[in-house]
């Protein structure tokens, strides 16, 4: 279902209440939100999908659309596809329906305004609507009340409950309402999280002790969440003066032995390029989150794209073998954040965690995730240091050497951005540079050799393979299922470790695939070219690349897998 209306109508609050109630009722669900350029006001919409299994994307068409008004509704026109007999519920007094409402939609005018007025809620009928929708969807009252109480507090909840009940009563009485969702009895207290919250959660669980960031949509809420929770766990959070400071502060804290992180989006990530190289050269562990948005430049701050891939792999001058991880679900956001800290610490390397707005901004109901932080939260491994002997992070013999100042006598070390020898002294000889450049590159081999980073779904023996990364991975999972339902067997592949590349592993998985479709939200087909560079691919590789702004729908991918569709779109990049 979708709910839309101009800002200030409480569309977002309604979405939140619905998904939290659904979670409490034992359902799975997914909530995405779309804003217009206005900071407040302007158009906004949320899309909600509820059911008895987890979802990773919106359906191709909607069962139910709730419209508060029509102002700017045409902006969402592209995203509003009705199912045959999908319902359109709208305020009865708003006048003529706009021309773009498809005729097949079942029209249900409703007197929200009057209902709200009756109880003195005037312009903000959202809680009345909430009550009505709970009845309509079959969400139970008890969980809904609990959700409202948690949200508004004991003091303010009375008023809210009045509105809720008024709406519910009306729906009850209106009779024809009653599309019940399958109520699933469960004991599990499911989580209701956005991808960004999941990253914050992962960081907290991994023992992150320091966060420095600079606000930027759509990454800011990672910092906002940590601002609530990091200090109370003994960590420190700083809003830096810019992204240059943010990454260098994190490097400083990491050198001091704390697990440190920063988070940003494209423009900030570009500014961090030099700092990334410093962390790499000085071998200071670091986690850098990039929640991608539409680029280039300021682009579109509130929408998703996957076009920071090249920058994540290749930004910063010189040879920079860093690690790039990419979650493809909200769950993955939490899990890979923990992994990111572990890898950063173990390899003394910066780890880029590439998320995107579609992951970061959506709310998912998901099963609890066992998140194990590393036992060794502080990076200083005092036990590895024999007093009196300096073991520098650049010492090849010091794989377990302290990565940071230990505060112990004799542990002195100078982190160095110049090329340096194994004891950290600046050294501009070719021999040293050759040795150290190779060591920096090869120390990631163990990681590249790991199994389990490449996810497969669908039919492993299919001759058609579909590969993606990031949030498009979630769409691939659904598209593979949808294709199978239509009788087309597809091997779905999702990469989670983007650098170092794993050509052997992928080759093994690709065995039997005759054609490989590459799905990604990037006009320049960055993933497609990335794959060509680092992997051995089947002889037919077809790019399905298109720019971001709107995530793929499963139907879009399924359709593209048919020869004609693919040939046309892929042509640009082959």
């Amino acid at each position: 279902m979708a709910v839309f209306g101009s800002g200030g109508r409480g569309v977002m609050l309604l979405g939140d209440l619905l998904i939290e109630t659904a979670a409490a009722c034992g359902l799975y669900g997914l909530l995405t939100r779309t804003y217009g350029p206005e900071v407040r006001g302007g158009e906004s919409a949320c899309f909600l999908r509820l059911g008895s299994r987890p979802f990773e994307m919106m359906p191709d068409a909607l069962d139910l659309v709730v419209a508060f008004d029509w102002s700017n509704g045409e902006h969402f026109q592209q995203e509003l596809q009705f199912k045959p007999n999908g319902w359109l519920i709208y305020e009865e007094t708003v006048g003529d329906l706009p021309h773009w409402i498809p005729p097949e939609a079942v029209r249900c005018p409703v007197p929200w305004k009057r209902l709200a007025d009756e109880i003195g809620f005037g312009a903000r009928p959202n809680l009345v609507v909430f009550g009505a929708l709970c009845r309509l969807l079959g969400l139970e009252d008890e969980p809904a009340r609990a959700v409202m109480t948690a949200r508004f507090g004991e003091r303010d909840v009375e008023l809210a409950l009045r509105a809720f009940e008024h709406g519910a009563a009306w729906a009850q009485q209106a009779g024809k309402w009653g599309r019940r969702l399958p109520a699933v009895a469960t004991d599990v207290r499911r989580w209701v999280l956005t991808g960004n919250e999941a990253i914050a959660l992962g960081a907290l669980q991994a023992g992150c002790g320091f966060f420095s960031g600079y606000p930027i949509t759509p990454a800011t809420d990672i910092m906002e969440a940590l601002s609530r929770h990091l200090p109370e766990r003994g960590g420190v959070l700083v809003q830096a003066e810019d992204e240059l400071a943010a990454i260098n502060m994190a490097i400083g804290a990491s050198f001091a032995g704390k697990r440190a992180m920063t988070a940003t989006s494209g423009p900030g990530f570009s500014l961090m390029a030099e700092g990334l190289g410093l962390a790499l050269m000085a071998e200071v562990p670091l986690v850098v989150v990039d929640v991608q948005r539409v680029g280039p430049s300021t682009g579109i701050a509130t929408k998703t794209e996957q076009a920071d891939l090249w920058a994540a792999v290749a930004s910063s001058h010189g040879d920079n073998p860093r690690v790039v991880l990419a979650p493809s679900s909200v769950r993955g956001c939490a899990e890979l954040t923990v992994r990111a800290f572990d890898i950063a610490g173990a390899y003394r390397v910066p780890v880029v965690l590439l998320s995107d707005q579609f992951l970061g901004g959506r709310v998912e109901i998901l099963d609890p995730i066992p998140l194990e932080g590393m036992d060794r939260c502080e990076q200083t491994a005092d036990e590895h240091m024999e007093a009196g002997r300096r073991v520098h992070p650049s010492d090849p013999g010091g794989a377990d050497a302290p990565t940071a100042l230990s505060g112990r006598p004799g542990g002195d070390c100078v982190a160095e951005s110049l090329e340096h020898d194994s004891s950290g002294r600046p050294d501009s000889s070719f021999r040293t540079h050759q040795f150290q450049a190779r060591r920096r590159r090869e120390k990631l081999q163990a990681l590249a050799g790991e199994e389990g980073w490449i996810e497969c779904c669908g039919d492993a023996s299919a001759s058609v393979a579909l590969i993606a990364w990031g949030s498009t991975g979630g769409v691939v999972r659904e598209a593979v299922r949808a294709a199978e339902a239509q009788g087309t067997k597809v091997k779905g592949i999702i990469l989670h470790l983007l650098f170092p590349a794993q050509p052997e592993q992928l080759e093994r998985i690709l065995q039997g695939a005759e054609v490989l479709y590459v799905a990604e939200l990037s006009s320049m087909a960055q993933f497609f070219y990335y794959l060509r560079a680092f992997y051995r691919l089947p002889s037919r590789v077809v790019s399905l690349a298109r720019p971001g702004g709107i995530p793929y729908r499963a139907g879009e991918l399924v359709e593209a897998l048919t020869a004609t569709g693919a040939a046309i779109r892929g042509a640009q990049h082959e």
Partner: protein
Amino acid sequence: MNKRIVSARQAKDYLSTLKPIWCPGCGDFGVLNALTMAFARLALKPEQYVIVSGIGCSSRMPGYLQGYGFHGIHGRALPVATGLKLVRSDLDVIVTIGDGDAYGIGGNHFLHAARRNVDVTCVVMDNRIYAMTKGQLSPTTPLGDVTATTQGGSVEPPLRPLLLALAAGATFVARACSWEPKRLATLLAQGIRHRGFAVIEVLSPCVTFRPEDRTLRERVVWHDREPTHDLLEAMQAALEGDGLTLGLFYQVGRPVFCGESEVHREVPMPKSPRRGLDAVLAALGESAAQD
């Protein structure tokens, strides 16, 4: 070995074994010496402090001293030092950088470190030139001077570093010179002991690219008054003598920056706009408690 003997460490014991790359006669030698003297005077153990720098002749400092050091990138020494200090407030964090690092590319960090009153000691070796890159304009190069990039003479009025430090909020503001390492050492020791952002601007001439600055020796005057608590008075004093007055101009106490951390929470936490994470963390907390 008992504690007495440890604290009897001499200045020269703070030198590392690395030979400075500096030109003979470079002012930075004086600063190096003064730092070792200050450390000796404060009886610091090498593991009690960290030297953080950027890139430049002056920024080579960490390598020449015993102890932990961070030779980072050009202009970003202060953020590195800030992150470090926030999580290791037990250490003395000393930033040793050049005029380009501090006031050129790093100007914004200087501003905000001062505003926040980050508890580090910022030693700026001001040679009024970009020396490491062989003699280009610096924000402190005098107006009209010919440099490699202002071959027709600079048209930029120089920055007034101490005015800036004071306006931005530094709580310890001093100027010294490299050729009087003892007096410099005294100021360094005071600056290290000061709680808050201490700026020590050191005239440290570059003999190679600004040989004319040898004449600074004759032009400086020590300001021997007590440091004031009055901002505008300090500014006036710092501006005197064409900015060549030396001494400690300003020192005040003000809470040091600790970042957002539990310690500082006097305000009640506002309600979260979304409850998801709070609920999960609460649940995780419970289950952890059960284990």
